[in-house]
């Protein structure tokens, strides 16, 4: 095992993973620097989510290494990886994944409560972040009463309130319209830059990727220089439409 370079928060080397035989990642190496916003781009099925799962320790790659702050993640037992996710990482998925039984501020404070913060401190931090993200008016409502864009902002607030080292955002705007998309992304990137949080952002959208400091394109589970798919031929077989089918 070679120790990773010092200036990388997360460093991964030749990650291989397959889901029950279906290929996921085929040898991806990636380094994420401190306090940068890194976009992982590529079409659906190119292995973005699998890569983020491997980097965040939710998934142990079948081959390859993942290091976080010079500590190997791929050799950690499940309990320690769980603790790492709880205390150092934040996760924003395309689905807000809020707990429907809890109110908005309780959802935001949940990572803090899970870390053992007192009720009062967790509530104070959560309310502050809700105010910053302009959703404090809904603090006492339940998620079912909100719009999807508002729920996604709560999910962003939940990730930020825990003050993580790295936030993994997996297609955070996939289910939103354009106006909401811009607002959620701007909130996330601004907060991350002002608090020095590293963000790994998976997206298939070139517009979203433009907000990042650096872009890593993926295609079919491999890092590529640029994603250029072969030009689409004229609807195949239209010219020679046969009656035999």
């Amino acid at each position, binding site marked *: 095992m070679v120790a990773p370079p010092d200036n990388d928060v997360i460093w991964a080397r030749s990650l291989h993973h397959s889901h029950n035989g279906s290929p996921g990642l085929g040898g991806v190496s990636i380094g994420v620097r401190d306090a940068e916003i890194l976009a992982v781009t590529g079409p659906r099925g190119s292995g973005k989510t699998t890569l983020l799962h491997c980097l965040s320790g*939710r998934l142990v790659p079948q081959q390859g290494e993942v290091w976080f702050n010079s500590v190997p993640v791929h050799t950690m037992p499940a*309990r320690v990886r*769980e*603790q*790492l*996710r*709880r*205390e150092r*990482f934040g*996760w924003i998925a*395309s*689905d*807000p*994944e*809020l*707990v*429907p*039984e*809890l109110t908005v501020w*309780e959802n935001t404070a*949940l*990572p803090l*409560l*899970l870390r*053992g913060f*007192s*009720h*009062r401190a967790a509530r104070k931090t959560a309310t502050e972040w809700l105010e910053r993200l302009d959703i404090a008016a809904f603090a006492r409502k*339940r*998620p*079912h009463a909100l719009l*999807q864009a508002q*729920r996604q902002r709560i999910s962003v607030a939940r990730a930020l309130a825990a003050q993580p080292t790295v936030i993994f955002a997996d297609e955070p705007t996939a*289910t939103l319209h354009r106006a909401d998309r811009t607002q959620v992304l701007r909130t996330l990137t601004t907060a991350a830059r002002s608090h020095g949080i590293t963000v790994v952002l998976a997206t298939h959208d070139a517009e979203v990727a433009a907000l990042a400091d650096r872009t890593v394109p993926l295609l079919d589970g491999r890092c590529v220089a640029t994603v250029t798919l072969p030009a689409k031929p004229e609807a195949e077989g239209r010219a020679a439409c046969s009656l035999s089918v």
Partner: protein
Amino acid sequence: MLALRLARGSHPLVLVRRLLVAAASAGVGFLLLCALGYAAAHPASAGSVLRLLWCFVPLAATVQFAVAVARADPSTRPRPGLSSVGLGPVRLSALAAVSTAVSTTLGSMVALLFFLHLRGDLTGMPFDGGAAEFLGAGSPLPLAAALMLLALVPVAASTASALALRSRPDPARDAFGSEELPEPAPAPAGLPWGVALTAAGLAVEAIASRGTAGSAFPLPGRYDSTPVAVLIGWTLTAVGLAMAGPSLTHLCGRALQAVRPGAVRLLAGRVLMNEARRIGRPLGVVCAVLSAAVAASALYGGDERPYGPLTALGAVLVLGCTTATLLTSALEAKHARAHTVEALLRMGAPAAVLRRATALRAGALLALFAPLTWVIAQLAALPLTR
């Protein structure tokens, strides 16, 4: 056919639950046939109606269990894949009714064979006619009556499960993830009615037992003089407890999450408040049945009259079915929350926190319902043992 195909691929635990339904149905069928046999052997006795009426308690418990099993059955749960090919909640409820009918009919057939065998009508196996005298072997059994009694459980269970499953939400909305979160159910409001009915039931019992002080009311098959008022009182108490169950569960959850909760208490309390309807009703029924059992053992425990075998079978059926219903409902609630639990685990919530929350819920419910059961049992037994 689709019901059988789906059953073939399902988890062994699901099949075990269906077998339990079949066993409960067999037990009830056997009890009903015994009542019929007694009536055929003693045409003039007024006790045969009483015996038949007593059979409706295990029958109700079995129907409740069959509905709970049909609800928790993963093969009839609405799924986006099946919904898109046209098998929506309505067709699936028909499917659930068919599977319930299959398992309960199987139970009824077993009951018929067993009954005829013990009566001595079918020969060639050990214990031929082992209880011929007891089951009224001398007189012929009316065929139409036997078939009608045997059809009672399948018809009641499949109708009830079809009706219960019809109103489930369409899974097509699952395709949108949490964009369409279902509205949480409002807090159950049955507490005043439940308390009133329980109190009325206890009062009816107390008044009814005043005239016949000292002679506790007998179980079927011993005497023919059950005071109907006592039965009404117990029924009222049971219905009242079943109505109060959801509200009490909700209150329990509210108390758990009160006053600056940490993560464990917050999750435990809120989930209990949300699942109050699903868990509370079977819990109230179990509470009523247990308190009746405690009262009955206080009444007849030290007596020289032991329980008859049929009474024991009925009691086992009622206790088993209601407890199994409670467990099945708890399992259903767990499955309904699987998505949220997954999200929590992905966030890094330790599994120990979730386990502790579950234990806390169970402990809180036990702490509330165990004393309640004991108090109701003591109150129910008090006027009868005086």
